[in-house]
């Protein structure tokens, strides 16, 4: 590993570089390296290979706790309602299409609520995807209240005996208080029209994001409560290591990873594969 025969500061530096390059961030990298230093002091880690293994196991321990795929019991919960949120451009709309496709291919009736009433051609983009996956689409005119779209979507879902509803929301920076308030209202309306809903509040994070992903996850969680995370664009060169610190701190299940722009480019999160890819 890293061509080293002994453990020295050079090895620790190289390890640190590896962790940073994978976007684990300062806090998590320090935490892992401190664990290594403790292990070295106690004489528990004697060879470089042991050090690498220690770090891997630590990451696995953290990430396995986040390896919780979504199991929907439609006999208990129908319609099952997803509310999909996140900052601008992370892949919310595309991820909805991918998940919808999975359930639609299993014979489930899917409805998508186009509650991004702000961005140019947001509804049109979703319309193309809804047609491709065979999902119903609920929309209103541009500029209308997203909560009104959510309201319509829930009522249409009940009337049409829909199994699965996705509410697509506009991208928004977590620091914009008024936009976060808007999201609270959408959630409240969904819950009012369908008690227990939204059953999954999915935060979509972009794997190329740095440590700002931690503030995103914290704030979205604080404001509306996040029950699942989708980490997109892992088909690039970014490793998405920021998810380690997020999982450790917030304990939110990582439901999916996005690995491309196509309808099938969605996988369930697997801690082992993720950690292997980091090394």
């Amino acid at each position, binding site marked *: 590993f890293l061509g080293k025969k002994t453990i020295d500061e050079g090895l620790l530096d190289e390890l*640190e*570089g590896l962790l*940073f*390059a*994978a*976007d684990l*961030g*300062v806090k998590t990298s320090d935490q892992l390296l401190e664990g290594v230093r403790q292990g070295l002091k106690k004489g528990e880690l004697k060879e470089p290979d042991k050090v690498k293994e220690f770090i891997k196991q630590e990451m696995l321990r953290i990430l396995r706790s986040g390896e919780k795929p979504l199991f929907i019991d439609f006999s208990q919960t129908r319609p099952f309602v997803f509310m999909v949120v996140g*900052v*601008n*451009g*992370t*892949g919310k709309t595309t991820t909805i299409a991918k998940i919808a496709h999975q359930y639609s291919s299993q014979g489930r009736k899917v409805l998508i609520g186009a509650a991004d009433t*702000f*961005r*140019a*051609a947001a509804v*049109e*983009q979703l*319309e*193309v*995807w809804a047609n491709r996956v065979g999902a119903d689409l609920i929309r209103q005119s541009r500029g209308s209240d997203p909560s009104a779209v959510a309201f319509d979507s829930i009522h249409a879902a009940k009337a049409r005996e829909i199994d699965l509803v996705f509410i697509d929301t506009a991208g928004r*920076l*977590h*620091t914009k208080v008024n936009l976060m308030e808007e999201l609270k209202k959408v959630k409240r309306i969904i819950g009012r029209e369908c008690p227990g809903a939204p059953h999954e509040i999915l935060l979509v994070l*972009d794997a*190329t*994001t*740095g*440590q*700002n*992903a931690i*503030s995103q996850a914290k704030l979205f969680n604080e404001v509306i409560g996040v029950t699942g995370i989708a980490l997109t*664009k892992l*088909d*690039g*060169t*970014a490793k998405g290591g*920021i998810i380690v610190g997020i999982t450790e701190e917030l304990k939110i299940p990582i439901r999916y990873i996005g690995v491309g*722009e196509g309808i099938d480019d969605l996988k369930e999160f697997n801690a082992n594969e993720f950690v292997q890819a980091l090394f």
Partner: protein
Amino acid sequence: SLTSKLDAIFKKLKGRGKLTEQNIKEALKEVRMALLEADVNFKVVKDFIQSVEQRAIGQEVMASLTPAQQVIKIVRDELTSLMGHGEERINLSGSPPVPIMLVGLHGCGKTTTAGKLARYFQERKKRPYLIPADVYRPAAIEQLQRLGQELGVDFYRPEPSQAPLDICLKGREFALRGGYDLMVIDTAGRLHIDEALMLELREIKASLKPKEILLVADAMTGQDAVNIAKNFNERLGIDGVILTKMDGDARGGAALSIRAVTQKPIKFIGVGEKLDALEVFHPDRMASRILG
């Protein structure tokens, strides 16, 4: 803040008599931490700290009554000069319609920025023309056309299944005939490691010879910023950068990473979702933001 951290360090150190080189190195560890927390690339941070160390270990800091302030000043000056000069203009030389091409990863804000740039030039009494060359993303063409409609800026209407290169070539003909001053080409988001799509950009570049190829990059990009910028610059060649979503709370260390690896100027920053949310880049403000 970094300043208060350094103040605290130097207060503690001065109590022990004269400052040593080792003391300065300790202080620079805090600077290194600040940069890493700002998402500056790990290797770029290493190089930066080494170059700053040279100046910081000089007499002026060691003998200073306010070493913390001296170190901060050296770091800030160095960072600001690395950030470039600010006020970089968009190159509109050459016969109209001058081609400006926007490239970058998925979702970084290219289409929105194309609209913003069109508005920017419209404000300056130029006639921009928009060319929607993203044929992959659902409703991408429509998205750019809607922005054009909103601004009263004209745009090319691609045929169904028209290829991106042809869209640019035909779009240019329209722009030429219509007497427009410049054309802003919006391209599809793509990975820097996608050979076929990088080739597509090179073909558009070869045919249209854009005066400006601008890399649009998300201010919250992490360590990968070096890979992205390096690859786009080496495989395509960029003339400048636009850093988007600066209205968020990302420290924006990606800016330093991109500058370090390409030496190309950051010309604008995106500061919101509306079409008027485009500002000229200020290197000193960026330096302060990154240092935190």
